[in-house]
């Protein structure tokens, strides 16, 4: 499998869990296991009216980038169902380029 990366615009991730469930049901993983997992940082207050409160979805070992869906010309399940439209699966170089040029991006390649 060619290397791929998950690119997240975490500024918009609302922590809705759809990516997790979309992956879990697509792959028939048992409850509690996912190819993509949310991580929460915060909430804490660091200045008047300023809060750290973010979600960072990260890939797990079980992600296979939805090769079967891509072959059918569909988006990966997590990407399609992401309610804030903040996920992309890309070639690592492309993901790195976008992450370098925009704020709020994280990417993880596999």
């Amino acid at each position: 499998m060619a290397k791929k990366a998950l690119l997240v615009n975490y500024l918009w991730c609302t922590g809705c869990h759809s990516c997790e469930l979309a992956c879990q049901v697509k792959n028939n993983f048992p409850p509690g296991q996912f190819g993509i997992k949310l991580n929460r940082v915060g909430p804490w207050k660091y200045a008047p009216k300023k809060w750290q409160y973010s979600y960072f979805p990260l890939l797990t070992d079980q992600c296979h980038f939805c090769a079967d869906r891509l072959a059918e010309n569909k988006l990966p399940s997590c990407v399609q169902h992401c309610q804030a439209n903040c996920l992309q699966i890309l070639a690592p170089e492309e993901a790195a380029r976008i992450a370098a040029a925009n704020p709020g991006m994280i990417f993880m390649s596999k």
Partner: protein
Amino acid sequence: MTRSSAWTAPGCHLGCGLLIYAKDGKVERVEGDPDNPYNQGRLCPRCLAVDDIVNHEKRIIYPLKRDLADRGKDKWQRISWDEALDTIERRFKEYKEKYGAESVVFLQGTGRDIAPYITRLAWSFGSPNYAFSLSNVACFGPRIFAANMLAGVFMVADYGQQFIDRYDNPQYKNPGLVAVWGNNAVVANSDGAYGHWVTDVLQRGAKLLVIDPRLTWLAAHADLWLQIRPGSDGALALGMANVMIQEKLYDEQFVQDWCFGFKKFAALCAEWTPERVAEVCWVEAGDVVAAARLFASSAPVMVQQGVAIDQREDCYDASRAILSLLAITGNIEKPGTMVVMPEFLKYITGWGRDLLPYEQEDKRIGADDLVVYKLGLHVASINKMIDHLIEQPAAYPLKASWLQTVNLIACGAVDNERTHAAFSGLEFNVAVDLFMTPTAMAFCDLFLPVTTFTERDGIRCGDNSQRGETINAAVPPRGECRSDMEINLELGRRFNATAWPWENVGEMFSHIFAESGMDFYQVQATAPSYLPFEYEKFLSGKMRADGKPGFPTPSGKLELFSKSLEFMGLDPLPRYVEPPMTPFSQPELAQEYPLVLQTGARRHNTFHSENRQSSRLRAMHPEPTVMIHPETAANLGVRDGQWVWVEGPVGLTGRVARAKRLAEVTPIVDPRCASADHGWWRPEADPENLYDVNELNINNLISWSTGLTGIGANYKCILCKIYPVKENE
């Protein structure tokens, strides 16, 4: 694969478009429908796990009966549909003959596609006593009523949902500001508005103002967040209007042309200086000014309003105060503001009202002494119904109930001691549902099993902007399940054949679509079909029956001072009234119960009392919780994840009740407040302990009081104390 819409259980109010994948007659999984403009391929976790519910081993798939003497016991017996329907027909008709049709009450839970068929069943049977299960109709209804009093119509935030091409429609304009008021939108997905439409418009450049007692994700990312005291929203809105008026930030021309009663409204607002608002609402005076300036300088502005505003006694006044902010800034009916959406099915006010005999109307419970019910609403007051059920006056006894899609004692109802007593007093209760529920287990005698949306057809129009869309069966019904519509058509025919002239549900659906010139199957083939829409209908005369420009109100304008309310003998101005159970209104009680409790915190994995059977969803939030601030927790000696009792007075009844919860220690709540989720029961627990509902239900701390007007109940501003659960408790 079947293209469908989830506008019924186990889907929610929204009815997102989805694709159902099935194999050998069994649902395997669903995906969002990328071609559906409504959700654009997205889904929340609940529909993603739909197969867990559809295929669940505990679904009831045959009609059941139980002896009256065995209520509360798990002694159900399988019966045939013929026996079930014959029994209901015979008994309901007997009650009608002996005591009048009003002796049978019809209840529903949250509104989805089933609502019109329930009203039609009640009214064609001849009973005026169709009721919504929530105390004082405290959801959506108050907002609609408020809008009608102010504008003569109901308006919602404009996310371009009325256009097939959505945000790209050339007429559409992205809002400059979205004010999310009392709504955890991205979690709640409430009332027809897809929550992440908010992030859509933010990504397109809108600013964000959040008014919420809790630091939601939206609040943390807002340009301005006001952490308001639960229940005080009306005061804040008046205070913001005051700043706009004092600083002349409002739209003077629009007010002159289209608002009525501005001077009286301004005089009311003048009482609400930023300092007074700060004291009443627990916010900073400077933030009141900042919020007003942001609101007044960001046109187009929309308000994404949540159920929090409906869930207190001054509900429609608070809603009117918020709407007044939009009115005086001219944010009405323009792109990206609040607009009247297209509608083809008046399902909110019910279907088949004309079938109710005139003489029955006067018997509607609540219509005699609650003016809002008499003149404004078509439902019976469930609060008065509970009193009536317990007192059973000889002149007008109640005998039976039809409980369709309503898990009363786990969800909408309050003060279960009373609710339980009320329904136990009836001779014959029928439940129509997917699973055995605490409600059916407690006091029902017959159980009719229904299909999920994956197993049947239906109409999907929506609570918000309506469009022609259908729910399409993807698999055959499990066991002997039937759809709600099939059940109601069959029973309706037996009660009143002329009111239900259709051979099958397809014909009935076609009749509903008749005005469009299409039948059900054509709509099914062409869905979604969008209705014509234009902005600023008050300019073109399309809002009034007489075709004149203006709004359909007595003055033809937006009534900041409502003539309709004046006519009803109610306060024409949106005055703030302190709710009855707060540290301000009950300083003595607050000594013992110092925390302000909000109930009904929405969770990603559940819709009201539903979804708890799904292991995938349950794992996301397995037990009921109460959120408390770290400082408060430290003072109480409570750790995160510890079982606690949330205890409080049951309104002003003099009784006290408590609910068991896991403490969730988090800084998102104010140290003076606590926030609990609702709808809790444990489907896996002992049925004869009613699935633990009495121990868990947070609504036990709320009374059935009719409050100020009989609409709006205090689900979100009551008093409580919290202490650890002892061993063996």
